[in-house]
């Protein structure tokens, strides 16, 4: 892979604030270092990663040893701060308005509920007869962030604390629950609530409550980040 690819890739993990602060061109090593911190803060403040440090040490970009020491001392300690994400009320409100606009347009034009579980479900084999608008919608949804990053030179943070195995198991359970419950955040939480559907109200309250309880148990009772 060309260096530029990895720089861009690592850049996705740094917050836009970091990016602004360091508007001057950075060596690849520095960017990678920052990216690991952003991820490490979430992965588990206690054990980021001798593995990651080794990866840096063995990476093709020469990283000065004092840099690595600095990295060690800068590692987030077992404090609450390490999981922080930036509070973004305006951007989130604006994004919410756009999501609402999309939901209204899909109803006005296609007469469909904008529930992502339902839209995805209709594409699974054997696909529904009306698979084409579903595929087009998902293609648009996937293209949008790619276009924002490519054209707008904006950084969209994405961090997950989970290992590959946990992603697979977690994803499976998300899918099973959403399909069994006939909807997820978009279908029940936005479209259903907007229609004042009693089923969606029950579903939304239920998954909000179990999500809150789950995060509390994982973060504060089991104590893992």
């Amino acid at each position, binding site marked *: 892979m060309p260096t530029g690819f990895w720089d861009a890739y690592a850049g996705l993990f740094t917050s836009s604030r970091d990016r602004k602060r360091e508007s001057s061109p950075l060596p690849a090593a520095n960017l990678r270092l920052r990216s690991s911190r952003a991820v490490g803060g979430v992965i588990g403040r206690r054990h980021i990663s001798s593995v990651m440090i080794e990866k840096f040490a063995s990476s093709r970009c020469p990283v000065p040893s004092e840099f690595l020491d600095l990295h060690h001392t800068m590692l987030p300690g077992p404090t609450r701060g390490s*999981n*922080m*994400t930036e509070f973004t*009320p305006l*951007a*989130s*409100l*604006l*994004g*919410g*308005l*756009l*999501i*609402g*606009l999309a939901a209204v*347009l899909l109803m*006005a*034009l*296609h*007469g*469909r509920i*904008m529930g992502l579980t339902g839209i*995805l*479900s209709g594409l*699974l084999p054997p696909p529904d007869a009306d698979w084409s*608008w579903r595929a*087009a919608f998902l293609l648009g*949804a996937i293209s*949008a*962030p790619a276009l924002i990053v490519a054209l707008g030179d904006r950084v969209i*943070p*994405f*961090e*997950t*604390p989970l290992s590959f195995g946990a992603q*697979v198991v*977690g*994803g*499976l*359970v*998300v*899918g*099973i*629950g*959403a*399909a*069994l419950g006939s909807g997820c955040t*978009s279908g*029940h*939480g936005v479209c259903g609530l*907007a229609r004042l*559907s*009693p*089923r969606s109200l029950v579903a939304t309250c*239920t*998954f*909000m409550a*179990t*999500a809150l*309880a789950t995060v509390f148990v994982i973060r504060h009772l089991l104590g893992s980040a």
Partner: protein
Amino acid sequence: MTIIAALAIGLIFGTGIAVSGMINPAKVINFFDIAGTWDPSLAFVMAGALAVTMVGYRVVLRRPAPVLDREFHVPTSRQIDLPLVLGSAIFGIAWGATGACPGGIIPAIGLGEPAALVFVVSIAIGIGIVRLVQARR
């Protein structure tokens, strides 16, 4: 026309998800971590989305039919049954643990994140399993 319109609406949706921060699982988890690193941003996402959709649906659903279809495809069931509650409870547990809901994580594929792809494929398989079991009954 149906396809182009769906593509455009998908673009609006994906932009909303990206701008709002719903695309980031860590942010979603923090929304639920009120006792810890709480990030209330997603309440603003919900508020914005609901406000527009509530008003918009009022206007749209008064019309006899959508522009590109013969009828509105709106769920009519009002029954609150076990699958609804059990499924939602299971979904919430996994959503809290992963920070990944279908709407947030599908657009994340566009960021080139391998994790997003892993999540989406797993979610699709999960949905497929339920469909298979339900079809057998």
